C-alpha cells in the first residue's frame, strides 16, 4: 500500500527531482524514497497554489489538455494542482488516487523541466503568502480592541486570580490541571504584572494593573488556531479553497474571537488541540518516509501537544483518544503490510510508544512537578488536601512542625475526616435538641481549627492518667479498644441505638459521661485500613476507622449540614454499613504528647507520585462535585450546535459595555447543515463503494477526500461533543468550541468537495468553472458579511439592547433566547 503511488510516477518527473538522501532506518523498499525534496519538508501546501499560479503561463492548448480531468481550474488548487502533488508522491497516498495515471503522465510529459522548477519557487512563495495573509488576518482580528473592556470579564475572575497565585506562589485548588494557569501566570509575570490585583468579581476595573500581557498571551495562542486549521484542512484535502473556507469560517466566527480575547483556559486548550491535530495529519502524510527527520519531528510534536492539551483541561483526553485511534489504525495497516519485517514493526511500535505515551506522560508529570515547586506557600487550597500534603506548604501550621510519630495513650489529638472538605471531629457544650435522639452532647465535624477539636486517647477500661511520668509509654496499636475523651468537656465519644439526626438509617453519635466515666457504649475499636493487627498507628499517614464495639457500626461523617441547632456544622453518625468509604476513614492530624519525642514532619512528607495521585483524586472529586441544582438554568449539550444561547461575558444594562459569547449564527448553522449533509453524502458514497459501483477516477478521488479527510474531522467533532451528554457536571456553552473547530474543518472540506462534484457534472458547459469559484467565493463573502453584522458581540457594544430599534444589534436577535 505504501508503494502504490509510485505507479503513478512517470520516469520524466522522477528525473527532474533531486534524490533524497537515505533516511535513517527507512524500511521502505520502494523507489519512492528518491522523490523527496529535502528542502521543504513541512510545506506541501505550497505546491498547490503554485500549480495554479503557474497555469496562466501554459499555452492555451495545454490548458485544454489539463482540463481533461474534467475539473475546472479554479482559484487556488484545482484538482490539477493535486495531480501535480500526487505525481511527486509526497505526503498523501489518498490524494494520489484522485488522479487517473494517464492525465498525470501527459501533464508531466508536456511540462518542460525548467518551467516546473521555476514555477515551484513561485508556488512556494504564493503558498507562503497566502498562509501569511490568513495568519495576519487572524492576528489582526484577535488583537483588535484587545484592551477593551478594561475590567474583569466572566471567568477571568478565576483564571486571572490563579495566575496571580502562581506569581505570589500561594497554593490553591482547581479542578483543571495546572498548565493553562501556569502559562497565564508566566505571561503575567513576564509582562510586568505583579500579582497584586484581587480579581474579585466580574466587572471590577483593572485600573493601573497590567492585564494586557495575560490577555495578549491568550489572544496570541487563540490566533494560531486559524493557521493551524488552515494547514490541517490543506493537508487532508489537498485543496486550497477548502482550507481557505475553513480559515474564513473560524476567522469570522464571533464566538472563537470572543473566547480568544480574554484570560481564559480555552484558547490555550484549543491551541494544543489544534496543534496536536495538525501535527498528527502532517505526520500521517509522512507515512511514506518512516523514521525520517520530519517524521520524528511531527510525531514528537503530536506527543508534546497532547501533553499540553491534557495539561490544560481534562477535555484534552478526547484529542488523545483521537490520536490514539489514528495510531491504532496506522499500526494496523503497517502490520498488514507483509513487506515490513516484524523488527521494523517493533521499531514503529516503540517509536509511537515513546513519542505518544512516554513523552506526553513525562511532560505531564513535569508540569505537575513545576506546579508543586512553584506553589510552596499555604493558600486557599490547603483544606482540600490531606494533612500530609499540607505539611509541604510553608505558612501552614503543619509545615516544619514536629510532632510525635506514633499514637500513644494519653496523646491529645485532632482527628480529620478523609472525605474532601469534611473537617475535624468536633464536639461542644451543646446538647442535641428535644426529639432528636438522646439529649446528649453534640458531636459534629467542623472545618476550622479550634480547641473543641481536641480529643484525648484513653484506655477503655482504666481512667488513670496515662501521662503520669511513672508509667511507661504505651502505644496504641491496630485493633486496640480505646476511648476518646473530649478535652474541653471531658465527655466520651459515644454511640447508641438511636437514629442519627439527618441520616435516619445511621446511629447517633454523642458526647457522654462525666469526667471520662461513661459506659460500654463509649468503647471504640481503632483499625488501620489495610494493616495487620498489632501495628502502631502513625500520625498523619495511617488511615484509621473507629468501630463502635457494642453496635458494630463505624464512625463516619455523612457530609450533611446540621440545622441551626447544630451551628450548621456537619453531621457525624455511626454507620452500620461496613463499606470502606472515605466518609468513614479518618486520620490523626495534630498530636501532643509530652512523653514522646517529637520528630520533624519532613520524614512524613509524601513522595511526588503520592502528591500527584492525591491531587488527581481531589481534582476528580471536585469535578464530580460541580453538579447543577434542579431549579438552575443550565446549558444543555443539545443547545450548543444550534447556537441556542450565548454566555454573557460582561455587562447587562444598556449603559454597560457588553460582550456576549455567541457563535456567528451564519457560520454555526452552516456547520450544522454541513454535518447533516456530510452524513448524507458520506453514507451514500460508502454504500455505493460497498456495492462495488465503479466511480470515475475524479469522483473516486473526491470521495476518498470526503471519506478520509472529512471522516477525521467528523471523528474529532464526535469525540469532542458527544461525551458531554454523559457528563453529570455542570456544563457551559464554551465547552463546545473545540468541537466547533472540527465541525468548521468538516464544513470546509465538504463544501469544496461538493462544489467540485457539481462542477465535474457540468464540466463541458461554461458554468462548470463558475460554480466552484462562485460557490466558494459566495461562502467566503457571506461569512465575512455576517461577521460585519455580528462583530459588536465580540468587540463589545454600548447602547440600547437589541429589542430597541436604535441598537447596533437591532433586528439581529434572530432567536429569542439570545439576550444582548
Amino acid at each position, binding site marked *: 500500500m505504501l508503494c502504490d503511488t509510485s505507479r503513478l510516477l512517470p520516469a520524466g518527473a522522477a528525473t527532474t527531482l533531486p534524490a533524497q538522501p537515505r533516511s535513517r532506518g527507512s524500511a521502505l523498499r520502494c523507489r519512492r524514497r528518491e522523490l523527496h525534496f529535502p528542502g521543504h519538508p513541512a510545506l506541501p501546501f505550497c505546491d498547490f497554489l503554485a500549480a495554479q499560479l503557474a497555469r496562466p503561463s501554459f499555452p492555451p492548448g495545454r490548458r485544454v489538455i489539463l482540463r481533461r480531468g474534467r475539473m475546472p481550474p479554479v482559484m487556488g488548487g484545482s484538482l490539477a494542482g493535486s495531480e501535480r502533488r500526487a505525481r511527486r508522491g509526497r505526503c498523501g497516498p489518498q490524494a494520489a488516487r484522485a488522479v487517473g495515471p494517464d492525465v498525470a503522465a501527459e501533464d508531466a510529459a508536456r511540462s518542460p523541466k525548467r518551467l516546473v522548477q521555476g514555477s515551484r519557487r513561485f508556488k512556494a512563495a504564493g503558498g507562503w503568502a497566502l498562509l501569511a495573509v490568513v495568519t495576519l488576518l487572524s492576528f489582526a482580528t484577535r488583537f483588535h480592541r484587545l484592551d477593551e473592556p478594561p475590567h474583569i470579564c466572566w471567568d477571568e475572575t478565576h483564571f486571572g486570580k490563579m495566575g496571580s497565585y502562581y506569581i505570589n506562589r500561594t497554593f490553591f485548588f482547581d479542578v483543571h490541571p495546572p498548565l493553562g494557569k501556569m502559562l497565564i501566570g508566566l505571561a503575567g509575570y513576564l509582562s510586568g504584572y505583579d500579582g497584586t490585583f484581587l480579581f474579585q468579581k466580574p466587572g471590577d476595573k483593572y485600573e493601573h494593573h497590567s492585564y494586557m500581557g495575560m490577555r495578549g498571551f491568550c489572544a496570541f495562542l487563540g490566533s494560531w488556531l486559524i493557521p493551524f486549521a488552515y494547514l490541517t484542512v490543506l493537508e487532508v484535502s489537498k485543496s486550497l479553497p477548502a482550507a481557505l473556507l475553513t480559515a474564513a469560517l473560524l476567522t469570522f466566527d464571533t464566538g472563537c474571537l470572543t473566547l480568544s480575547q480574554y484570560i481564559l483556559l480555552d484558547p490555550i486548550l484549543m491551541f494544543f488541540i489544534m496543534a496536536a491535530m495538525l501535527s498528527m495529519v502532517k505526520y500521517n502524510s509522512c507515512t511514506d518516509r518512516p523514521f525520517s527527520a520530519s517524521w520524528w519531528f511531527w510525531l514528537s510534536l503530536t506527543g508534546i501537544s497532547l501533553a499540553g492539551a491534557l495539561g490544560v483541561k481534562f477535555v484534552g483526553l478526547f484529542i488523545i483518544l483521537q490520536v490514539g485511534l489514528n495510531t491504532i489504525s496506522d499500526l*494496523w495497516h503497517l*502490520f*498488514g503490510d*507483509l513487506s515490513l519485517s516484524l523488527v521494523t514493526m517493533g521499531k514503529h511500535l516503540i517509536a509511537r510508544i515513546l513519542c505518544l505515551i512516554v513523552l506526553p506522560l513525562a511532560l505531564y508529570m513535569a508540569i505537575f512537578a513545576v506546579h508543586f515547586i512553584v506553589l510552596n506557600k499555604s493558600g486557599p487550597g490547603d483544606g482540600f488536601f490531606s494533612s500530609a500534603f499540607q505539611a509541604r506548604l510553608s505558612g501552614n501550621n503543619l509545615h516544619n512542625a514536629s510532632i510525635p510519630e506514633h499514637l500513644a495513650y494519653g496523646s491529645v489529638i485532632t482527628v480529620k475526616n478523609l472525605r474532601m472538605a469534611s473537617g475535624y471531629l468536633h464536639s461542644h457544650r451543646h446538647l442535641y435538641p428535644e426529639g432528636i435522639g438522646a439529649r446528649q452532647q453534640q458531636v459534629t465535624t467542623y472545618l476550622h481549627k479550634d480547641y473543641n477539636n481536641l480529643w484525648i486517647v484513653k484506655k477503655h477500661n482504666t481512667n488513670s492518667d496515662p501521662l503520669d511520668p511513672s508509667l511507661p509509654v504505651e502505644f496504641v496499636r491496630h485493633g486496640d479498644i480505646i476511648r476518646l475523651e473530649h478535652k474541653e468537656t471531658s465527655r466520651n465519644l459515644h454511640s447508641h441505638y438511636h437514629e442519627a439526626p439527618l441520616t435516619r*438509617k445511621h446511629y447517633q453519635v454523642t458526647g457522654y459521661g462525666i469526667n471520662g466515666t461513661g459506659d460500654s457504649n463509649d468503647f471504640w475499636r481503632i483499625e488501620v485500613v489495610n494493616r495487620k493487627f498489632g501495628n502502631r498507628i502513625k500520625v498523619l499517614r495511617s488511615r484509621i476507622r473507629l468501630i463502635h464495639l457494642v453496635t458494630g457500626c463505624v464512625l463516619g461523617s455523612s457530609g450533611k449540614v446540621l440545622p441551626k441547632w447544630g451551628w450548621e456544622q456537619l453531621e457525624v453518625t455511626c*454507620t*452500620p*454499613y461496613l*463499606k470502606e468509604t472515605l466518609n468513614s476513614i479518618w486520620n490523626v492530624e495534630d498530636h501532643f504528647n509530652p512523653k514522646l519525642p517529637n520528630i520533624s514532619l519532613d520524614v512524613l512528607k509524601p513522595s511526588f507520585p503520592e502528591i500527584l495521585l492525591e491531587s488527581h483524586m481531589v481534582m476528580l472529586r471536585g469535578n464530580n462535585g460541580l453538579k447543577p*441544582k*434542579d*431549579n438552575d*438554568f443550565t446549558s444543555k449539550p443539545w443547545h450548543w450546535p444550534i447556537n*441556542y*444561547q450565548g454566555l454573557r461575558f460582561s455587562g*447587562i444594562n444598556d449603559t454597560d459595555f457588553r460582550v456576549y459569547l455567541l457563535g456567528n449564527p451564519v457560520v454555526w448553522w452552516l456547520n450544522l447543515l454541513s454535518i447533516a449533509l456530510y452524513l448524507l453524502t458520506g453514507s451514500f458514497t460508502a*454504500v455505493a463503494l*460497498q*456495492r*462495488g459501483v465503479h466511480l470515475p477516477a475524479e469522483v473516486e478521488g473526491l470521495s476518498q477526500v470526503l471519506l478520509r479527510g472529512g471522516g477525521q474531522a467528523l471523528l474529532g467533532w464526535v469525540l469532542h461533543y458527544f461525551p458531554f451528554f*454523559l457528563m*453529570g457536571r455542570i456544563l457551559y456553552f464554551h465547552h463546545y468550541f473545540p468541537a466547533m473547530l472540527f465541525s468548521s474543518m468538516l464544513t470546509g472540506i465538504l463544501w469544496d468537495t461538493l462544489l467540485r462534484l457539481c462542477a465535474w457534472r457540468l464540466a463541458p458547459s461554461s458554468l462548470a468553472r463558475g460554480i466552484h469559484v462562485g460557490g466558494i467565493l459566495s461562502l467566503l463573502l457571506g461569512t465575512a458579511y455576517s461577521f460585519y453584522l455580528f462583530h459588536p458581540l465580540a468587540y463589545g457594544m454600548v447602547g440600547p439592547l437589541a429589542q430597541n430599534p436604535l441598537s447596533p444589534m437591532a433586528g439581529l436577535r434572530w432567536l429569542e*433566547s439570545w*439576550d444582548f
Partner: protein
Amino acid sequence: VDELILMREEQLGILLSLLFYKMLGFLRHPLVVTADINLNVVALTGVGLLSRLWRLTYPRAVVFDEVYYGQYISFYMKRIFFLDDSGPPFGHMLLALGGYLGGFDGNFLWNRIGAEYSSNVPVWSLRLLPALAGAFLVPMAYQIVLELNFSHCAAMGAALLVLIENALITQSRLILLESVLIFFNLLSVLSYLKFSNLQKHSPFSPSWWFWLMLTGVACSCAVGIKYMGVFTYLLVLSIAAVHAWHLIGDQTLSNVCVFCHLLARTVALLIIPILTYLLFFYVHLILLYRSGPHDQIMSSAFQASLEGGLARITRGQPLEVAYGSQVTLRSVFGKPMPCWLHSHQNTYPMIYENGRGSSHQQQVTCYPFKDVNNWWIVKDPGRHQLVVGNPPRPIRHGDIVQLVHGMTTRLLNTHDVAAPLSPHSQEVSCYIDYNISMPAQNLWRLEIVNRESDTDVWKTIMSEVRFVHVNTSAILKLSGAHLPDWGFRQLEVVGEKLSRGFHESMVWNVEEHRYGKSQEQKERELELHSPTQVDISRNLSFMARFSELQWRMLTLRTDDSEHKYSSTPLEWVTLDTNIAYWLHPRTSAQIHLLGNITIWASASLAMVTYALLFFWYLLRRRRSIRDLPEDCWLRWVLAGALCCGGWAVNYLPFFMMEKTLFLYHYLPALTFQIILLPVVLQHVNDHLCRSQLQRSVFSALVVAWYSSACHVFNTLRPLTYGDTPLSPSELRALRWRDSWDILIRKY
C-alpha cells in the same frame, strides 16, 4: 375486446381446475406430520423446570425485593395508577399477570421483608412466571451454542452450567424480574442466530420471517422489563448492522433484493420494537385508570385523565380562564416537589438573619398541599370587579393581568428587593402599602408557553403560562429553596430577573378553576371554600400521556439510599459480595443470592482466554498466517462478539451509573459469560490440544472441573433454596470469603 375477455375466462377456468386438482391431491396422499424432537432439549427443559419450580411456594413469606414488586402487583390488581422509575411497565405487568391468573385481589400490605403471606396471596402463581423464564434459560443456552455451530457436547455444557448456577436459581424462584429479563435477552440472541442461519439458504421463507420478527419483539420485551435491556438490543442491532453491511457488499444480489433485505430488517428490528414498546405503555395506561398515591408527580392534565383524584375535583370546571376567574396555580416543573402558588397573612421578616433587609410585605410561597390560601383571582387592571362578567371575557396570550390573593385580597407584586434565599433574584410579595416610597408594581403580562398562535386563550390545566412582570420584566419562578421557619418551610418563589432562557420552573398552569360570582369579600371567602361546579370533560391523547409518563420515569430522581447489601461493579466479577434475601423467623434457614463460585471464576477465566486467543489469531491473520480455517474463524468471531459483547454491554455501563447497585445487576452479563465458557473449552480441545492424549487429558480435566462445580452447587444449595436450617458451625464453614455476609443467629 371480446376475445380478451374470453381468454381471461379461459385462464380462470384453467386456474380453477388446477386448484381442484391440488385439492384432490390431499385425497390421494395421506396428511403426514413429521416432527423432530430433540430429546436433549426436552430433558434439559425437564431438569430446568425441576430445579426452578421445586417447592416454589417455600418460603411463604415476603423475600427481599418481592416487597418492592409486590406493591406494584397490588396496584395493578386494584387498577390504581403508580409511577415506578426503575423500568418500563412490561415486567411489572407480567408479574401482575401471574397474580391475575392466581386470582389475587391485591389485598396484602407489602411492608416488610419476612412478613408471612396471607391466604389470599397466590404465591405459587405469582412466582411461576419468573421461575418458568428461569427454567427456559437452560434449553435456550443449549440452543444458542448449537446455533453458533458448536458441538452438542459444548451446547450441553452451556445448558448444564446454567442449570447449576445458584444465583440464577435464587433469582428465578422469587417474584423478581431478572430471570425474565435474561430470558428475553437470550431469546433475542437465539432468534437472531436462527434468523441469520436461515439467511444463507432460505431468505424470506416463513421461518426466516418468524425468527426475524421474534428478534424484534424479544428485544423490545427485554427493554420493556428493564432499561438495561437496551444494551442487549443495541448489541443485536449492531451485529445485524454488520451483517447487513456485508449484504450490501454482496454483489451477487440485485439492488432490489438488497433493498428488500434492508427494509425487512428495518421494519423488524426498529419499527416493530418501537410499536411493541408503545403497546406496553398503552396496556399499562388502560389497566391503571384510577388515581393513586403517585398522582402528585404528574401534571394536572395527566391527573385529570385518571378516575378519582384531581379529576373528581376538576370535572365540571370552566375551560377558559376569564377576568374574575378564581384559580389555583401549580408549578409545572414540580421540583423539588409539586406545589401551588400560595400566600398567607404573614409577612417577610424585616431583617433576615444575615442582616439583609426585606420589604416586610406579605409572603408569597409555593405550597405542596391543597389549601384555601392557594386560590388567586385573575383581575383586569382596568376594572375593579372581581367577578366574571356576562359573557365572560377570556384572557389571551400577551394580556396584562393582576393576581389577587383570594383570602387576603392583596395583589401579587415584585420589586427590586433581593429575594430571601436567592439574592440575585427579586422578592415576590403580596403588596402592602407602607407609604415608604415603595409603589405597587403588580402588573403581569401573561405568556402562554405552549400556544399555537399568538391569540390563544388561557385554558385551565392545558395552558402552560409564564407571568412576566411589566415594570422589571422579571419572571415568576419557583426557586426550589426551602424558606426557614418564618416561612413555614414552604418553597421560595422569586422574580427571575436575568432570564437565561426558558426553564420549566418559570411555568405555571391553572389546576382548579371556577368563575367568581361574589363581589363581597365575606361571600367570596365562602365561595373559595366551596368545591367547584360546572361540567366539561377533557381527555389526553395516548401519545401525550405516554410521553409525559416516560419522561417523568426517566427524570424522577429518588434519593440514593445506602443499602447494607449494595455493592460496586468491581466486586461482582470476583463474587466478593452477596445479598441476604431472607431468614427464617425461627430457625437459621436462609436464602442468599450467592453464585456458584467455580462457574463465576472459570467463566471470567474463559473470557480472558478468549480475548487473548482472539487477539493472537487476529494479529497472525493480519500477517497472513491462518491458524483456523475460514468458517471456523468466522464462528469463533461471532461467538465472541455475542458472548463477550453481551457481557460487556451488560456490565460496563454500570461503572457510569450513580444509582445504588446490587449483585443481581450482574446476572445478565454473567449468563453471556457462561455461554462462552463451553465454546472456549471446545475450541481448546479442537484446536489447541495437538495429540489424542492431550485431548483425553483435557476432557478428563473438564469432567473433574464440572464435578467440582456440581459440588459447589450442592454445598451452597441450602442457601439457594433456604430449605434446610444449618448449624452455626456449618454456616461459618460456608463463609468462604470474609466479605460474604451469612447470617448466624446468636443463641
